[in-house]
């Protein structure tokens, strides 16, 4: 007889998810059992460091910050707040056009660039090749390591990795000292990441391996220009900053603030994305392949850290299989 599924009494993970064990005595998953909240002192130390970096950015190129802007709530709010707190920053906001960005997200991104006087760049790659790549990601099994599978779907991991590679490339080629990503506290643990050439080269190599495992033959367009990590090329002087590990994370408040400044809710059926039409399909695809909801770890971490109510997170984990975007994306990816 199959064992009954146990749910963590603190977060949203349960024993049906591969790799999750619930301690029958404490009722907690292994992540909640080992969780230590970030101390106020540490948070203050991070805030001081972010201030020190962003208040007097080293002058090198045209931009101080290369900013990854999806047009969703988190990144729109981060761009707005970054510019509000550090008005002197020159920002290049990059929106990656993966071919499935909602019209509203495109509009929101441009609106928030106008609002913050940031330069807007719509980064486009060969759309047919991208569709083939997402299709390969959807069909792939185990192209990403176990942990990455918990963090995001194979499709999202592919898309996010392309964005990271191209943003780092842009920062190196424009001599920008900072990159800012609006990752939630559930999506990353490190508030600052200093990039060195060996590390960037290693990131490139790892993603190249992931793409190869998916059967993507033409990979160079998705990777950091190899010349930038060759021996003899200059050492990058770049720090990646994740402000949501320093600021309090309160998505409903961010949304209210964004709407006040003209952000439009795209009203997608998908509970987990306000910008990408691929997302609902990507979640379903991941569930079908691995029995892992690709937002479960992110949401569990937010609940654990006190950034979200458990009931709200559970609602977000409901997959609406009647969402027409799922079938539409499936058709577009020839699956």
């Amino acid at each position, binding site marked *: 007889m199959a064992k009954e599924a146990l749910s963590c009494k603190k977060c949203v993970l349960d024993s049906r998810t591969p790799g999750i064990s619930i301690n029958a005595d404490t009722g907690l998953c292994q992540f909640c059992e080992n969780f230590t909240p970030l101390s106020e002192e540490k948070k203050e130390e991070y805030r001081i460091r972010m201030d020190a970096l962003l208040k007097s950015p080293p002058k090198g190129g045209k931009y101080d910050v290369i900013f990854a802007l999806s047009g969703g709530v988190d990144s729109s709010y981060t761009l707005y707040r970054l510019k509000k707190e550090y008005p002197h920053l020159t920002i290049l906001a990059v929106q990656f056009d993966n071919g499935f960005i909602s019209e509203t997200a495109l509009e929101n991104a441009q609106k928030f660039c106008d609002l913050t006087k940031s330069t807007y760049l719509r980064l486009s790659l060969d759309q047919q090749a991208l569709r083939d790549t997402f299709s390969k990601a959807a069909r792939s099994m185990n192209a990403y*390591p*176990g*942990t990455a599978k918990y963090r995001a779907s194979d499709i999202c991991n592919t898309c996010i990795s392309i964005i990271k590679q191209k943003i780092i490339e842009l920062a190196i080629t424009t001599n920008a000292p900072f990159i800012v990503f609006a990752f939630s506290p559930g999506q990353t643990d*490190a508030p600052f*990441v*200093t990039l060195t050439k060996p*590390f960037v080269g*290693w990131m490139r*190599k790892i993603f190249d391996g992931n793409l190869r495992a998916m059967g993507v033959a033409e990979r160079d367009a998705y990777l950091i220009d190899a010349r930038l990590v060759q021996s003899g090329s200059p050492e990058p002087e770049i720090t990646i900053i994740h402000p949501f590990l320093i600021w309090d994370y309160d998505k409903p408040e961010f949304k209210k603030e964004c709407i006040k400044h003209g952000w439009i809710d795209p009203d997608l059926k998908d509970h987990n994305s306000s910008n990408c039409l691929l997302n609902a399909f990507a979640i379903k695809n991941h569930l079908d392949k691995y029995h892992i909801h690709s937002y479960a770890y992110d949401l569990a971490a937010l609940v654990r850290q006190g950034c979200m109510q458990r009931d709200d997170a559970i609602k977000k984990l409901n997959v609406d299989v009647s969402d027409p975007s799922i079938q539409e994306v499936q058709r577009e990816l020839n699956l």
Partner: protein
Amino acid sequence: MDETREDILNFLKTQGFLNEKKILQENDSLSETGVIDSITLLQLIDFLESKYNIEIPVEMITPENFDTLSGISHSVMQLKQGDVVSDGKGSSLV
């Protein structure tokens, strides 16, 4: 060295980086065997810094030092003994 190796393996297992059944040899590449990627590498670095109260200089984060169990154990040992001189840039994490 063995103790460090065990700590690393335990961390990889409890965090779900490593399947309980997977056997990792000393010189297996963690990235090529699908155990870590760039983000999980940062989590591992964070863990090592907290666990051993060390600061890992950014210039030290290379595949040679952090892509195998033996490389990591050796790097941690060097740092614990104070054999590494940083260029002052500090750790990749705070």
